[in-house]
């Protein structure tokens, strides 16, 4: 893994065959995409350039590749000026303004206490003045999501529970044990919760149990989406739920449970979905997973082109 330069060479080519992109994040200005892989590198892509009418082949390659961590980078989050990357037990912050230049150093590094692997949620999870230790999960926490209208955080983990925490007091507000519900549990796959997304009163979560839409106020599962494979990432988008997981397809699901589409993608399994709002009516979706290629969708029905990690 100790490579001197991120470009060129047979070794690099071989390494690229094994790259998995684990997380993506959009820049605050909307022109760049940061993608992190399991070798500890973060690649910056010029998304506006690649989407413009006269994009050429070199626009589809990374503008810069940064050696961020020694271990896999599991998650990325963006604020106005910073890009946070989370890896084994440490979080590093990078300035968006400097990421494109050579020799970029991180702004700071923090080590949250007693964690083995880390997921970085939306940025506010780490505001210094409001840190609480949210104790409760029995096992790994896989995914964290912020609720928009209430100051709450949802977290889902290996122990199969989704917990809601209040951000002001740090107390657990609600506990949903997903695997205890008959409709969605799949004991043959396990009870881990890997993907979580929330919007107003609704939440979609999945992983070992089937992807289900939950109503948070009553804590009841309303629709079970019949996807055979475990899902790794899900998003709410307009009136759809987008989800990707094991299997080379992006699923477009309606809240009523109908599968509106299953779009083939390049990676063999999807790990991360990222939406870039370019205008209120038009959004661009980038999906990435077990492949050095990141697919870009301008229209949700088909793949427009691919960016490649170099």
């Amino acid at each position, binding site marked *: 893994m100790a490579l001197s330069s991120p470009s060129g060479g047979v070794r690099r080519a071989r390494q690229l065959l094994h790259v998995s992109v684990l997380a993506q994040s959009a820049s605050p200005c909307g022109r760049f995409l940061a993608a992190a892989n399991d070798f500890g590198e973060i690649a910056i892509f010029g998304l506006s350039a690649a989407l413009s009418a006269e994009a050429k082949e070199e626009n589809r390659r990374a503008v810069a590749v940064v050696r961020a961590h020694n271990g896999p980078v599991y998650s990325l989050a963006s604020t106005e000026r910073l890009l946070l990357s989370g890896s084994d037990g440490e979080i590093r912050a990078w300035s968006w303004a400097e990421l494109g230049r050579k020799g970029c150093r991180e702004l700071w590094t923090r080590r949250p206490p007693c964690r083995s692997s880390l997921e970085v949620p939306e940025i506010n999870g780490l505001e210094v003045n409001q840190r609480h230790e949210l104790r409760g999960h029995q096992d790994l926490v896989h995914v964290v999501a912020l609720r928009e209208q209430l100051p709450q955080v949802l977290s889902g983990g290996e122990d199969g529970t989704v917990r809601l925490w209040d951000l002001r007091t740090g107390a657990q507000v609600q506990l949903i044990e997903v695997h205890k519900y008959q409709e969605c549990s799949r004991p043959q796959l396990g009870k881990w919760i890997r993907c979580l997304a929330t919007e107003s009163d609704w939440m979609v979560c999945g992983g070992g149990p089937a992807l289900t839409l939950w109503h948070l106020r009553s804590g009841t599962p309303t629709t079970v989406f019949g996807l055979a494979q475990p899902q790794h990432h899900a998003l709410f988008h*307009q009136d759809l739920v987008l989800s990707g997981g094991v299997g080379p397809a992006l699923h477009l699901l309606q*809240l009523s449970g109908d599968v509106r589409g299953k779009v083939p993608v390049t990676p063999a399994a999807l790990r991360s979905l990222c939406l870039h709002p370019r205008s209120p009516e038009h959004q661009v979706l980038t999906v990435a997973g077990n492949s050095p290629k990141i697919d870009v969708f301008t229209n949700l029905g088909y793949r427009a082109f691919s960016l490649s990690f170099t």
Partner: protein
Amino acid sequence: MTPGAVTAPSIATTAGPSAAPLCHHRHRRRGPVPRGARGSPARPPRAARPPPAGSGPSSRRLPLHGRRSRRLHCGKLTSLAAAAAPPAPALAAMGAVTDDEVIRKRLLIDGDGAGDDRRINLLVKSFIKWCNSGSQEEGYTQYQRMLSTLSQCEFSMGKTLLVYDMNLREMENYEKIYKDIENSIAAAHEKISECKKQILQAKRIRKNRQEYDALAKVIQHHPDRHETLKQLEALGKELQNLSHIKENVEDKLELRRKQFHVLLSTIHELQQTLENDEKLSEAEESQETQMEAEAKQ
């Protein structure tokens, strides 16, 4: 004249429109010349003609023709003569190149296939000739011819002006159409963005409907509230009834108990009284016997 007539058009076609003035003159006489490609072998004889200009005047026109052609086309035809030297196929190609330049120059100067310029020059020349001529009838015919040439010039000028006007109006028309199309493009853009907004709204509505449906499905699993309320009411009534009955029964029980109590206490009293009475009577009897015993002593 006939050989010249035959060769000139053919030369015109092979030499391209550069020989247009030549055949134009002929056009007025013989109709449009078919501008098909004729054989270039016709070229050398014609190219050889101009140098002996003015020679062999078979008709009146030919010397004029020849002179005019010499004056106006000498540059071009000398190049043609020079071009006559190379072999025929290359000749056609090279001639076309130089002809193009000449055509361009001609068109720039004349505009109408070089007919008017020639006509005006001819008019001037014939006027000078007429001024210098002596005889009456020749002068008269010349004069008539000049008038006709003049009217032809005027006619062609009028035609050009009309064409110019027409072009201006066509341009305006096209400008108008262009603006209309631009406006409709802008309107279409507007409509597209409106429709996109409507799509967003419709998607939101659909999402709300689906959320509602999802919750409704869950709610349907639970029993109906009215029925439960009714059952609750019925149960409550039953409960009341039963408690009523219980009260009644308890009252009755109390009453009976009290009655029994009264009865029992009366019985006891009676018993007591009877016992008392017995005791009293015993006591009296014992006292009597005692008194008797005492009296006997």
